[in-house]
């Protein structure tokens, strides 16, 4: 059966962000079905059965996460939508928010119903001006049509959604830092446990889901868990997925495909292959900038959670970045390290001090002041950071450094030995 793209089915239509366009494509039918046919508990089971794993990066099973909510109802429950997408190379959530906000909204409403939440927060990256306006308009439209507010579609279920614009910090995409930011505090990750499902926003049980995850909930509501579980590579890698691809490719962009599509198919057939025919693939980061790099020789992989884990990297946010042979790996890592050093929230010692140190060493290597021992030092600093930080940001810099150095050690050593960047030297720079 041919794969039918559903997450992106509307995005090329004129006025795709309006509720009329969405309703014309059969929108909100899934929500009607959920409210009519499912109790909240049954819909949680439905999502569990679908095998949906979170699309924000960690790939945690969504239904299982919902199941961690405490049974009692002493406190209100909240749903927080993580729309703070800001990983370099990842731009899929923004597409959904701007082009098909009702697909996301429908998933939010169905998910809120499942977890018995009456107030949801849409935490959107501050720089997403258009996305913010579009989503606020979508909320108003949905409320006007009875999909939000009191007694949604006559079901007795109430839901309000508050749009909250972040101040533009990468760390606020980390779920507990997002909660801190939402509470009006500095965006610092919280120590876990307790996990947000137990103690979350304002101390109440809270579920935090990524935009794309919730869009997938809409599809499950619409077509059922069996349909969803039949896409991709069951049982653990089910459903459609948005893959970003950027770098040295002809057609960078967002492509929808079933989980498990071969990376080379995404690269060559969807993204049009390498940008410069004379420069073949040197390396790729299939999962987004915080994931481990794969040299070209290892790029024949399937794009799903388990296949990429077996290949020594991760699917992450599926923000594939492609580098051709004209790329200086040291320079690429320096570029990345600069980003992470700039975005390190500064809360815990290894990340705060380590990221800056990495940038300084990489800068020296790149400008020709490197020392032979710098290569080992880079790997050792990454090792000291990894696993010892408050949040996964530590891994977000440690994994790239470790994997870039491991995969391209000679290139780093060459920089140190020659006291110059060989590529810039060759280019006469």
């Amino acid at each position, binding site marked *: 059966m041919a794969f039918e793209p559903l997450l992106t089915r509307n995005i090329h239509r004129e006025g795709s962000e309006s509720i009329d366009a969405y309703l014309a494509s059969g929108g909100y039918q899934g929500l009607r079905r959920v409210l009519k046919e499912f109790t909240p508990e049954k819909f949680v089971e439905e999502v569990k059965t679908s095998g949906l794993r979170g699309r924000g990066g960690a790939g945690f099973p969504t239904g299982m996460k919902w199941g961690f909510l405490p049974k009692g109802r002493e406190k209100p429950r909240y749903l927080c939508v993580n729309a703070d997408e800001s990983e370099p190379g990842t731009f899929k959530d923004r597409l959904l928010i701007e082009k098909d906000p009702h697909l996301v909204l429908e998933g939010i409403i169905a998910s809120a119903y499942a977890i018995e939440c009456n107030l949801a927060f849409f935490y959107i990256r501050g720089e997403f001006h258009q996305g913010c306006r579009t989503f606020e308009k979508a909320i108003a439209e949905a409320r006007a049509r009875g999909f939000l507010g009191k007694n949604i579609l006559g079901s007795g279920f109430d839901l309000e959604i508050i749009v909250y614009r972040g101040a533009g*910090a990468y760390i606020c995409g980390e779920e507990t830092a997002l909660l801190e930011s939402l509470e009006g505090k*500095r965006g610092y990750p919280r*120590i876990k446990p307790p996990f947000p499902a137990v103690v979350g926003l304002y101390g109440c049980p809270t579920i935090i889901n990524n935009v794309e995850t919730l869009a997938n909930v809409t599809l499950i509501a619409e077509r059922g868990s069996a349909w969803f579980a039949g896409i991709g590579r069951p049982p653990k890698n089910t459903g459609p997925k948005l893959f970003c691809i950027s770098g040295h490719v002809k057609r960078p962009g967002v492509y929808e495909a079933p989980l498990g599509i071969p990376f080379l198919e995404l690269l060559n057939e969807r993204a049009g292959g390498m940008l410069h025919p004379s420069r073949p693939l040197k390396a790729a980061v299939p999962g987004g900038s915080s994931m481990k790099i794969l040299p070209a020789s290892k790029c024949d992989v399937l794009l799903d959670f388990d296949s990429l884990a077996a290949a020594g990297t991760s699917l992450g946010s599926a923000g594939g970045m492609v580098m051709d042979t004209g790329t200086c790996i040291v320079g690429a890592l320096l570029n990345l390290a600069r980003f992470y*050093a*700039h*975005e*390190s*929230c*500064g*809360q*815990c*010692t*290894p990340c*705060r*001090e*380590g*990221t*800056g*140190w990495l940038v*300084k*060493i990489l800068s*020296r290597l790149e400008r020709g002041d490197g*020392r032979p*021992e710098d290569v080992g*030092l880079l790997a050792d600093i990454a090792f*000291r950071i990894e*696993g*010892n*930080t*408050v949040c996964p940001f530590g891994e977000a810099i440690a994994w790239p450094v470790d994997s870039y150095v491991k995969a391209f050690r000679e290139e780093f050593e060459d920089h140190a030995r020659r006291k110059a960047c060989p590529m810039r030297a060759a280019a006469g720079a």
Partner: protein
Amino acid sequence: MSDPQSLQPRLSPPPHQPNVPAPGAAPVPGAAPAIPPTGPDEVALLIDDRPVVVRKGATVLQAAEKAGILVPHYCYHPGISIAGNCRMCLVEIEKMPKLQIGCATAAAPGMVVRTSNDRVKGVRAGIQEFLLINHPLDCPICDQAGECRLQSYEKDYGRGFSRFAEEKVHFPKRYDIGRSVLFDAERCIKCTRCIRFCDEVSKSHELALFSRGDHTIVGAFPGRPLDNLYSGCTVDVCPVGALTWKPFRFKARVWFLKNVPSVCAGCARGCNVNVATFRNRIHRMTPRVNADVNDYWMCDAGRQSYETLYARPRLEQPIVRPLPALPGAPEGPRPPAEADSPWDGALDRAAALLREVARTGGRDSLAAIVSARLSLEDLYVAKRVLGDLAGIPRLAIPSHEEGEDDHLLIRRDKTPNGRGAELLGLGAPSSSRVREILDDVASGRVKGVVVVGEDLLALPGIAPPLLDRLEALVVIDWWKSPTVERAHVALPSCGYGEFDGTVVNFQGRAQRLRAALRPPGEADPAWRILRDLGRRFGLANEYASAPSVFDEIAVKVPAFAGLTFRALGDAGAPVSGAAAPRSAGAPRAGA
């Protein structure tokens, strides 16, 4: 809040103390360590093969402390919330793939913890290295040298050399962050203890972190410097030399300081303090942990209260002046004092003056005004000598109140021993009783007054001519107050930090003041001066020392029954039947 069980893990061992096996806690070689049975509210776990039982809710770090194992830490402070940001306390816990921070991980039944295997040691050395890469390493001029955790931990856990060859991140130095506190941003390790203190304890919220990554900096909000009433506590909690207390900067190296455990005499709270002296001079006062009184804190006013010792001229020798001019004589310049007199002559003169007034005007023409700033021993001997032996019928204690009780430690009552005076049967400090005496001085009914530890001319509405009406003014005080300058006999007593004694705080807790300094000149504790005066009125060979006075109080005053001077120890003890209401205890963070 005074549950000793809850206190147990809060008392941190000094940070530089290397791990030593707790007596009897080391495992038997070859034997499998056993996890002991526990009560319903207890948890048993193994830390470095040592079985430990702690209360439920205790953290791994606290459990380790109980087992005598130091888990190094910077950001953890038992008096404020847990931040878990320094990562120095990472430990290995069986079945957990990543190392876990000991400060925030709750001890669980059967947990097996390793605090010093190679993995943990490697990470600690790494954290140390990270903390030092941008640190200025200016120990030779840093005021925290000798009590800096970076120094201590580097010695115990560090790599010993640096692999950092880069330019350090530079921040402002000697930044005036508040009235009394200087900030060196380059030394700061961003543990956020100071910020959390201002948020949770002083609740003044002046400080915050600004910027990100290795450019993160602690700062005060514009136009709102660190000027809360407890700003000095931010210096205490700073584990490195980033925040320094201006009055102490460059005054002395800490290893030269002698710390004497004592009590602040700034108000009726009686915060437990360490009085740090060098070359017979107090250089700083810092809070001493007492969960029942002040927890970990003290106010800035108390911290600087010792400065009056050096700001006022001291009375170092007994002074005897000529007899006063006859009542009604025109005012004029006071005659010069006689040459310094020996104690015997001065005490003889004081006794003679009081007798003469009693003889000519009757006992009712005598009165005494003693201070609630005096120790319990001073007050007791004053009562015995002045009241019982000299027969002075009226003894009043002025009250000194200023401001309001605050949410944390500060009390409106600025006397350290008002409650003690009350318990001794002297009555509560009362300005009206003092006023009555002074009115009687004005009307001529009172002609002789003994003043101990008070400057009558500092009381509102009292002018020097009033004292000139007296035929006998005997003053015992530690400084040359305006009242002393008008006294017929002035006897030098010890100032703060110069005598042993006891005070009872507003909660009814008896606590010991300890002598930390040699008194100047011929100054003596007030109780001893009063005792010697008492001998002129027939006092037998009693009261050899402050402890002997206290022990007599314990025998003769029912409220103090069962206490002994020695048993008060460093933490003090509640006086029987004098317990304060629950709300009067030391406030806690977040309370």
